[in-house]
């Protein structure tokens, strides 16, 4: 083969230059993969469009979420630098001048997302505070020398013009010290003064902008390097205005653990906390999935897998988005009807141009079949035979689906308002948990829902009112007609609660007279208490508030039952819901160990041959040699002797045992798979 050699391990293949120019567009791979490439071009375009939208949406979200943090950081930087700026002579500020202003940024454990945060932070700082922003990683700085080298080279890169590059590269090689840095700094700041108009005004609003040094992963820096650097730079602080930003993944205590008091007293630390990644996830879900803005939806299993990977494996939003991208791709790749997964008017237009084949695909959808069965017989016939009629019907179904989703999310949010404050959170604290349950089944059949309603019936008035107000806002925010009446209903309920206030006082006075219990003996007390209990049970007289509360609960219950049907009940839901959870899991969260184990223990799973079928824990004679060898290895791993094995196999009649091993060299057969196996299955 062309790619095996005893002298080298890398083989470069370059096609002819002419040939290389003709590169295949990506869409082609989308088409060719499937035999029946129905509308695949359109599908790929739709995928691309939706993905771009989602991506920009997530970026926007990210910026929005970071905005607060960045604003406060920038404010801190400006404030701390102003001291240097003023150059005041009084004692207090001079003491302060010896301290390096430091921002400790607690970012949480989702290390993979930090890069993105730091990148946008750098951009924000460069546009608002100073052009001199350097970010260092621990792996670049094994000692102070490298640390300074990196710092110098990045500083020079980030601000100096091309003409002086030669000179710098020479300097880079020679010697980097804090002295040279500070002299460079004064040099540069003086040089930029006359050139001021050339630069953006915002970036050089000060005469001497500070130098911001970001240490991305503070924990993994060597303590010695950090300490030395801090001590050195604090000496030069008066001429080299440094500001540090520590990226911290664990907890702020780590600063004091890494740095002794003598060093940490040189820092003036302020703590900043980034948004927790769980909240981040909630916002992302809220804006990407719990909305009708994007037609694409995830089924319960898929959502569960994605959130589980997030919560139990990495806390990384990036990975979550990646999973979302993959599911989007899989959906458009594998489902021919995903062509309808776009905005409603566009989908309606596309239905018109559907081919016969696609119509057949619609008819084959289980949800559509269920729908057809419910129709009258003549309509059934029309749906199954007449393409035109089918298309019209599909249009209205799509519209229904759209309406269903709008209502669904409104009611879901409303229900979440109710359940999120209940003790013990029977339906989950996060809206995603509620969403999962609702996607899975009829939520009103679940025990949790019943207990949630039970708890709702015990809510106090003010709690209930705040919830109702929130719900009112939810409904108000949408302009849908269907649920406009609901908003009105809630308003009415609220008004009734308010009017209850006056009525309540009267009731209080009327109910108080029974409380006066006279001094009695034990027997009478018991008796009267029993009587009171009996009375309460039989009379069932409810206060007005209780009646009203019951009304609210019934109202929300009816809403849920009407609108929170699981998506499987909707015809044509397959077009927008991605449900192949197992493929997602396979590709994102694979289990190589399980695969190896299965391949060795149960070859039937892969090689669908009846001869390989066996009961649990037993390996058939005819299984591939490697499986048998593995089994033996499992059984008596410490007693294995290759000679014995080979002799044993030679000594047994070959007809029944290992038919594959040829008569000529049966002894060798076992050792070869064994050698191979040893390579892989080292335990």
């Amino acid at each position, binding site marked *: 083969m062309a790619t095996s050699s005893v002298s080298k391990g890398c083989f*470069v293949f370059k096609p002819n230059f002419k040939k290389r120019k003709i590169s295949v567009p990506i869409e082609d791979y989308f088409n060719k993969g499937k035999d029946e490439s129905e509308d695949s071009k359109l599908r790929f375009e739709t995928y691309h469009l939706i993905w771009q939208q989602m991506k920009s949406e997530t970026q926007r979200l990210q910026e929005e979420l970071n905005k607060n943090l960045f604003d406060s950081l920038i404010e801190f930087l400006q404030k701390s630098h102003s001291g240097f700026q003023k150059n005041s002579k009084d004692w207090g500020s001079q003491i302060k001048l010896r301290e390096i202003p430091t921002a400790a940024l607690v970012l949480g454990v989702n290390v993979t997302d930090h890069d993105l945060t730091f990148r946008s932070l750098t951009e924000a700082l460069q546009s608002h505070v100073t052009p001199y922003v350097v970010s260092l990683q621990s792996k670049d700085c094994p000692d102070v020398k490298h640390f300074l080298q990196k710092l110098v080279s990045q500083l020079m890169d980030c601000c100096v013009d091309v003409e002086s590059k030669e000179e710098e590269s020479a300097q880079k090689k020679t010697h980097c010290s804090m002295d040279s840095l500070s002299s460079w700094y004064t040099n540069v700041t003086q040089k930029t003064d006359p050139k001021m108009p050339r630069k953006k005004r915002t970036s050089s609003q000060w005469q001497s902008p500070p130098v911001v040094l970001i240490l991305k992963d503070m924990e993994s820096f060597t303590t010695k390097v950090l300490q030395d650097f801090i001590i050195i730079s604090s000496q030069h602080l008066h001429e080299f205005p440094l500001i540090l930003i520590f990226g911290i993944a664990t907890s702020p205590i780590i600063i004091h653990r890494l740095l002794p008091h003598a060093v940490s007293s040189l820092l003036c630390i302020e703590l900043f906390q980034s948004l927790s990644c769980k909240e981040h996830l909630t916002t992302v879900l809220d804006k990407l999935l719990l909305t009708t803005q994007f037609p694409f939806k995830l089924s319960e299993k898929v959502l569960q897998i994605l959130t589980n990977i997030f919560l139990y494996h990495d806390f990384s939003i990036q990975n979550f988005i990646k999973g979302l991208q993959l599911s989007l791709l899989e959906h458009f790749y594998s489902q021919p009807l995903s062509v309808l997964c776009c905005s409603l008017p566009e989908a309606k237009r596309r239905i018109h141009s559907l081919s016969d084949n696609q119509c057949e695909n619609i008819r084959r959808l289980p949800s559509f079949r269920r729908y057809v069965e419910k129709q009258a017989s003549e309509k059934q016939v029309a749906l199954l035979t007449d393409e035109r009629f089918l298309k019209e019907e599909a249009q209205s179904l799509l519209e229904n689906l759209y309406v269903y989703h709008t209502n669904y999310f409104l009611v879901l949010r409303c229900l979440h308002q109710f359940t999120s404050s209940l003790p*013990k959170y029977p339906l989950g604290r996060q809206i995603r948990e509620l969403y999962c349950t609702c996607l899975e089944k009829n939520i009103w059949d679940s025990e949790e829902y019943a207990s949630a309603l039970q708890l709702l019936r015990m809510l106090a008035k003010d709690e209930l009112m705040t919830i109702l107000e929130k719900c009112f806002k939810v409904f108000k925010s949408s302009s849908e007609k269907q649920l406009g009446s609901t908003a009105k209903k809630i308003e009415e309920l609220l008004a009734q609660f308010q009017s209850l206030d006056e009525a309540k006082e009267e009731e209080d006075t009327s109910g108080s007279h029974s409380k006066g219990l006279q001094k009695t003996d034990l027997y009478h007390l018991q008796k009267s208490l029993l009587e009171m209990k009996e009375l309460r049970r039989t009379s069932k007289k409810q206060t007005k508030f209780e009646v009203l509360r019951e009304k609210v609960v019934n109202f929300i219950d009816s809403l849920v039952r009407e609108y929170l049907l699981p998506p499987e009940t909707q015809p044509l839901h397959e077009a927008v819901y991605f449900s192949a959870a197992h493929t997602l899991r396979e590709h994102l969260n694979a289990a190589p160990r399980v695969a190896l184990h299965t391949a060795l223990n149960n070859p039937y799973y892969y090689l669908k041959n009846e001869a390989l079928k066996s009961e649990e824990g037993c390996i058939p004679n005819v299984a591939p040699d490697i499986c048998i060898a593995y089994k033996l290895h499992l059984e008596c791993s410490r007693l294995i002797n290759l000679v014995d094995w080979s002799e044993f196999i030679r000594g047994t009649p070959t007809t029944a045992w290992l038919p594959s091993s040829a008569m000529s060299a049966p002894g060798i057969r076992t050792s070869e798979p064994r050698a191979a196996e040893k390579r892989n299955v080292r335990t």
Partner: protein
Amino acid sequence: MSKPELKEDKMLEVQFVGDDDVLNHILDREGGAKLKKERAQLLVNAKKIIKKPEYDLEEDDQEVLKDQNYVEVLGQDIQGSLKNGSATDGGNKVYSFQNRKHSEKMAKLASELAKTPRKSVSFNLKNDPEIMINIPQCSKGHPASDKVQLKNNDKGEFLSTTPRGLRKRLMVPRSHSDSESEYSASNSEDDEGVAQECEEDANEVILRPKSQAQNRVVSAPVCKETPSKKMKRDKTSDLVEEYFEAHSSSKVLTSDRTLQKLKRPKLDQQTLRNLLSKVAPSFSAELKQLNQQYEQLFHKWMLQLHLGFNIVLYGLGSKRDLLERFRTSMLQDSVHVVINGFFPGISVKSILNSITQEVLDHTGTFHSVLDQLDWITNKFKEDSSLELFLLIHNLDSQMLRGDKSQQIIGQLSSLQNIYLIASIDHLNAPLMWDHAKQSLYNWLWYETTTYSPYTEETSYENSLLVKQSGSLPLSSLTHVLRSLTPNARGIFRLLSKYQLDNQESPSYAGLSFQDFYQQCREAFLVNSDLTLRAQLTEFRDHKLIRTKKGADGVEYLLIPVDSGTLTDFLEKEEEES
């Protein structure tokens, strides 16, 4: 929290949990979800007691609920998944300790096979239950087993070929079926007695307690359903004893037969390969079908590679042919680099070199690997029309699995227009990547179980059956020795005998020159220091001996030949002289 419940929980704390319960808990995951749930609830209860006044026990509750949820989803998914291993019983098999649950089945098979020569009838696979009954009976009775031995002796050819391991296995099912069927102390004693007899019979040293302990451990989970309490108690005490028995025996007796003892000459690489190529793989139709399935994914792979994912293949069997087919069918018109991770001389440096020198036609050199990486990164970022496919066979190989190498390859693969498709084989390969690296790689996992042999991948490693060209084989030894004077031969024989005598001691460093000289003089082989030295120089020139300076500065002499060959050589010499 009500009081009785509280009490109950307190009782729980002191309750004794039997070993077998623990075993059940570990091994039995069939009812895993249920069991887990119960445990979890217990846990929650306990927590509630501890922090009753606080309100955050709800959170705990919640978390537990989530955990259960996760476990369920995991379970469901593995079951629901079509591809990801059958694993009907969760991951317990995969992640358990060494599982000996079904060892008796293999042993049964072995005994079946062992029976055939005695019966000298071509045996039928179907009547194994009967055989199972037969074996314990006939091997228990003293005379019967004697007979077996005798018969075996008659069939000399069989005895010579029956390995010791097999005979051991013959005994295993017997003792095992005993202990399993009746399971009482007296019986096991009985069993032991019989076993001792058998041991004498067989003239074999078998570490009895050891094997028995193993058996018992095996059978424990088998009998775990039996509800009888008494039996449980028996078992727990047994288990304790067996535990110590199993762990006290420091030495495991294994068969000491080696390949050298076989009267079969070693093959050279070529013959071995020819022999292996004659063997047709079983289930070729099914394998072909599997491969076709994977080939249908090629277009999808290309699509996903272009969309920014990288692809990693895992699963049993060599994936080299598959990737090769992918290369020839999809990548003919694009620049690509094939990297054999299994090549012993591979390094990240060589990968980067081939990219810079051959793909990007750069002639300069770089200070460090990181510089080179930076340069490549810049080059690819500047020119978006550049595209490069990297195919790495065995990304987890010895040479590439290091942290630094993985970091660099990961950074390469994270570039927009470098597409990486790699294969991994090691069981723990995914441990190479932490979160940061994983996000660099942006993997999509694909399972491609091929069952094909790792021929090419293992070709750089030495097989036991192949003649090692590096060491001195017997023939050349005799060849050289034959051309020497009888005295010289005597010198060599002396040295080799001494080495064989001392081969057991681990601290043996060689024979010191002075001692050797003394011995040679005593055997009238040399008359002076100088003659011996001249002789030794000749040996050294033929690479028959090696000298080493010890820690005390004394010269030590060694024959760089393994003891098996040396023994053979001496035997041959004896015959000749």
